[in-house]
């Protein structure tokens, strides 16, 4: 699922944002990225933070200018869990016993 690339998450705006708000946020992000602001280089998604580039910002704005593509993007963004700025917690590994086979006399 391309939820991480959803234009609303890339731009860091809500799914209710108006077209003007979207354009303003995109211009601000492009400026910050050009000046090398660290906080602009990542964005929060329900899957954890992702890296943001100027190309992604331009693509996101273009997507939200198209009514159909905005409709699909809204469908995902409105119903997704809230974005998370922290990486997802890793699942605990299965209860394996590394080295047991060797301890029992088998290789490797």
């Amino acid at each position, binding site marked *: 699922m391309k939820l991480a690339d959803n234009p609303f998450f890339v731009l860091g705006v809500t799914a209710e944002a108006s077209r003007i708000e979207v354009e303003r946020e995109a211009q601000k992000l492009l400026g910050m990225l050009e000046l090398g602001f660290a906080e602009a280089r990542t964005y929060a998604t*329900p899957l954890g933070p992702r890296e943001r580039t100027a190309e992604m910002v331009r693509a996101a704005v273009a997507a939200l200018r198209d*009514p159909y593509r905005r*409709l699909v993007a809204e469908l995902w963004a409105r*119903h997704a*869990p809230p974005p998370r700025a922290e990486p997802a917690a890793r699942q605990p590994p299965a209860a394996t*016993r590394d080295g*047991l*086979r060797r301890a029992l*006399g088998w290789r490797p």
Partner: protein
Amino acid sequence: MYALPYLLLQRLRQAAINARRRNRTGRYLVWSVLAGVTNAALLVLGITFVVLLWSLSLWWLALAMIAVLVVPVVADTLVRFVFVPRGYHRLAYHAALYSRPGTDPPAYALCVAAWASMNGTAIAWVSAKRETRRPLGDAEVAATAFLTATRGDDATARELLRSLEMIVEDHPAVRELAGEWLACDAAERGAWHELLDHAARARWPITPLAYLLEGIAERHTGAPAAPGATELWARWALAPRHRATYALVVDALAIAPGARVPPGSPASPEAVNATEAAAPGAPEPTSLPRAVAAHLAFEATPATAATLAYTVRAWDTALADAATRSWLARRALELDAPLGAAERALRDVAGTVTDDLARLAEAAQLGAPPDVGGPVGHGLARRLRHGRLDALEAAFSRWADRRHDNTQHPSIDEWRAFIALWTAYNAAVAAGGIELRRLAFPHAFSKGSNMAAWLWNKREEYALSHAISKWLLSEALVVGDSEAIELGHRNCALAIPTRLGRIQT
């Protein structure tokens, strides 16, 4: 006069070992103890005789008697505790030859040498020994598996050892080693259900170590016949590697019998969701957020049939939900989207979701969930079935083309190629159900029966050919292909020449 008690004890020891090989119950312990006692008695008798000869200044005869009476009794112990750990593959081979492992001692010796192999030189030596033994049988396949494991390819080693159950040639000592490797491997991965499943299916003779690991697995899985503390400690005492297995036994005994949930009844997402929904004050989740949340959870955790079914149902419910459709229609109007945008958006979302779930299901070798009727469920079933069928047909055709490429592949490579296909076929039919099995079988039968005939007539690989014919027959019986059943019965009725004699199944 001295030889008679020795020979009697030896026969008694072999009878105890043979009886033990037929058992997986408490009698196993009794026969093992009897085998151990007779072994000790043989050793005492042999040493006494040697000392007697030495005291009579017949040292040359004493040395000969050491070789004849003492070495065979201690050879297996030397193999397991000295030659294999130190990687003395040649010594392990010769000691195994001397250990009286039954008919065809080089078969067992080959496997032991492969077990002891630590480096490229040893692997080359064992491979060369294997190539001199034709046609291929269970020992050559097992030895190849052990060498593959030494190279670090555990997955292939596992498949090769599992494939032994299809080979009609049966060296009990070889099967014991194969079963022990599989048990140790499963224990290392914590795959207790797999360990028990394999033990139940293969029904091979079992070593004391594998017997202990099976008992531990039964405790972990809450099996009704799981051994109690006394029996488990008895198995532990009987098995080698006490230090390594002590913690396993303690862990297993800490589990109350029947406490673990068997596979197939995990805490289902439905149950979790129901609990969450029932929590006081929790908002009623609508169908679309539930579907997205289920999808994210499915991506983030190891995929299972239950979580896949839950995710598919959640999506089909959400996409058919009147609330979703009316929200989409209203937003399409507000955004001034083109006519039919709402329906198109639903189709696009269904397609994206199906692609994503199909990719994850393929990776986890899962089949489409049964009894799902929405666009995602249908799309997923179609995608998985067609993709797997195409891949299987292409692979069977490539396999059959090996006959015509003018290259004489080693017999073990022919077997490995078949095992890779057999694994892929089993995974596909397990995931795709009887419908995919019926579609896949005719092509598999056409190519497989040609290969079986070629292996029998041209390559004289009788056991391999018979294994393929037997597998095709079992599949033909499942799908009800009468022509294939008739041919399969004719092929499987042929007597198979092996090193253990001609075998009629």
